[in-house]
């Protein structure tokens, strides 16, 4: 594996990999003394209000916000941990493994809920359930499925309508997609049946939530499975066409997490940001940002998020991953 990483590095490095970001934005560029470099999987526009508030309160701090995929964050961070001050990702498993492997700096002064932190290093700051998002047009006059089982039935009932119009993450590329898939697989066999049904309908696979929602909005696909509801809600123009369904049979809720690099040169500033992040996200304040708050409950019902514990590393095991992916492929890619 090490050789593989080196190989990838060499390839990417030679093709200007360093500049190859999904997005890059600097906040408070002009008059700051210190610049925090944050690598994140969250879209800039979701995060911008929070950062704006932070730099407004701390005018001497600038923030360079770099966006890339979760797997890419893991890869880049392992190679150059000193290049980033803070890593933010929705892939809890990868984040936890980074911390377990010793890349994170414990922050003694950050107070947080015990279930939402790990080793006083990894701090969760959102609760985001995986959702089924549908284009209302495809279900006009039909009952809207409320669970995975109902979705299976709906798909089976009208295969002609849904053929090639069902989307989900390509778990081989998306860290978050892999996390959701493995947690679903742990929870219920229904997941595999759904995958088989979706495989039978020539499922479309996506690397990222954004693309999937784009296609959903314009009607290219009718159903997206395991999408982050937050992304869908963020699209103001989607409100009328899309419906977000939180499956009632079992929830899969992800928490976005952040940690400070052990190799950072600005531990105090980074800790200051993390403290701000968790308190900003823990208690609702006026003009709160676009990110979902950290909460133990969803719509009044208990919705325990995926636990921050070493077991998250289980599906990162190479043997386990290979086995899961081959099952996933055999279910979903039916040639």
């Amino acid at each position, binding site marked *: 594996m090490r050789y593989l990483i080196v190989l990838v590095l060499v390839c990417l490095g030679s093709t200007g990999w360093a500049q190859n970001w999904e997005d890059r934005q600097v906040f408070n560029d002009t008059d700051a003394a210190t610049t925090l470099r944050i690598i994140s999987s969250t879209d800039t526009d979701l995060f911008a209000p929070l950062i704006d508030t932070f730099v407004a309160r701390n005018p001497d701090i600038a923030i360079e916000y770099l966006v890339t995929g979760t797997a890419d964050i893991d890869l880049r961070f392992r190679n150059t941990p000193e290049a980033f001050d803070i890593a933010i990702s929705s892939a809890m498993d990868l984040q936890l493994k980074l*911390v*377990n492997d*010793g890349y994170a700096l414990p922050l003694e002064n950050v107070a947080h809920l015990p279930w939402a932190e790990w080793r006083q290093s990894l701090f969760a700051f959102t609760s985001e359930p995986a959702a089924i998002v549908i284009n209302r047009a495809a279900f006009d006059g039909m009952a809207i499925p409320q669970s995975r089982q109902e979705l299976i039935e709906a798909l089976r009932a009208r295969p002609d309508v849904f053929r090639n119009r069902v989307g989900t993450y390509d778990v081989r590329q998306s860290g978050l997609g892999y996390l959701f898939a493995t947690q679903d697989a742990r929870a219920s066999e229904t997941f595999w049946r759904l995958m088989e049904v979706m495989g039978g309908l020539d499922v479309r696979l996506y690397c990222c939530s954004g693309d999937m929602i784009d296609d959903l909005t314009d009607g290219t696909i009718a159903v997206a499975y395991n999408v982050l509801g937050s992304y869908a809600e963020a699209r103001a123009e989607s409100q009328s066409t899309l419906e977000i369904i939180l499956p009632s049979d079992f929830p899969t809720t992800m928490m976005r997490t952040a940690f400070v690099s052990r190799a950072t040169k600005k531990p105090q500033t980074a800790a200051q940001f993390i403290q701000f992040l968790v308190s900003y996200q823990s208690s609702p304040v006026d003009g709160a940002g676009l990110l979902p708050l950290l909460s133990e409950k969803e719509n009044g019902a208990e919705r325990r998020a995926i636990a*921050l*514990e*070493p077991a998250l*590393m289980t599906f990162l095991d190479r043997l386990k991953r290979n086995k899961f992916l081959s099952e996933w492929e055999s279910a979903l890619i039916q040639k």
Partner: protein
Amino acid sequence: MDSPGVSGSLRNQLALTLIGGAAVLALLLFFAVRSYAVQVAQQGQNNILEASVTSMLDAAAIRDGRIELDLPYAAFSMLATPADDRVFYAILQDGVHLSGYEDLAFSQGATGGNLMFEIGEMRGGAVQKISASRTLIGANNRTEVQIVLAQTQDALSETLDQISRNAALLGLGFFGLAAALSFWATSATIGQLGKLTSSVTRRGPQDLSPFTKPVPREMAPLVTSLNSLMGRLDQSLSRSEDFIAEAAHRVRTPLATVRSYAEATLQRVDKEENREAMRSMVKAIDESSRAAGQLLDHAMITFRADHLEREEIDLVVVARELVLRLTPIADMKDLSLTLRGDPHVPYSGDLVLIQNAVRNLIDNAMKYSPAEGAIEVAVALHPRPQIRVCDRGPGFPTDEIEALTTRFRRGANAANTIGSGLGLTIAREVAQAHGGQIELANQEGGGACVTLSF
């Protein structure tokens, strides 16, 4: 009285020994509890590590000649701790790395289905490590799957810290209780000594009877020695008193004989120069017998002054008896001896000593009084109980009043009067032994006054 030399304190020694013992026991308790807790906690972690690695090994299987290991979610889930301990693992096949952390070394001792625990270091943290293996038998080959699992010990040390704190509290509590008990036991033990001490102190000066109250066995030898010492003291005291009495007898009886002969002779001889010699002889005998008497009296007073034998007496009764007793002698000189003052003056004092002092004062007054003079003994209750003896003699030389009560001093105008000069000294010492004083003064119109106040 001299205080005895003090070296150390039994109470402190006892208390220190007990408390020191308690401290040592408390420390032992602390370390024993702590080391037991370390064992138990370590054993607990080892058990979980073993369960985890066993579940991982169980998930291994050979498929198509290749090892497949479907890592159970629970294998890592059960390793979750409140302190969020880090977990490392590695899966090997016959020593070839398959999955997990490559830098985690498998312990060779664990091959062939064995288990092995080790302490190691992983990514900047101390870890407890378990290595285990399992042989898998395929269709046509045997292979061994080997797993190393390591976990940091943050939760363990947190638990240990907590147990240490509790053990320390327990030890402190034990120590506090033991210290309190030590103080109690010490006081109770020393209390027995205190009881004996106060019972010795409460005794009257003449009470030299043995102690008969029961005492703890350990103190019995002390009480026995004390009783035997008091017995000897009693003997020696009565011997001293007998000795003084005997000495007086031995001195006085021959003096009495010589005096009687001298007096009888004086009656018979007519030649004036012989008579003068006889008179001088009688005078000398009187002086020496008086001196001897006063010396012995003084010895007796010194002997008694340390331990006054106080009793309730009426100073008026004491004075009256003395006046009655001395009246025949006063009569012989045609002196009048009168008593006046308060009807009753009760006082708690040593009768023998006070009688002696007052008799000496009256003796002195009679000695210095002119013929047919008046001597007045006055007893008063206020401001303090006191007895005053006044005469109409020449009075004290004013420049010698202070020095007069010093032993063996006589006034300059007493050249012709028999007396050893001890009378005032005796009176002063008796007054002082009673916490009182003696006051010398001259009367207006001539005469001396001595006031003995208590």
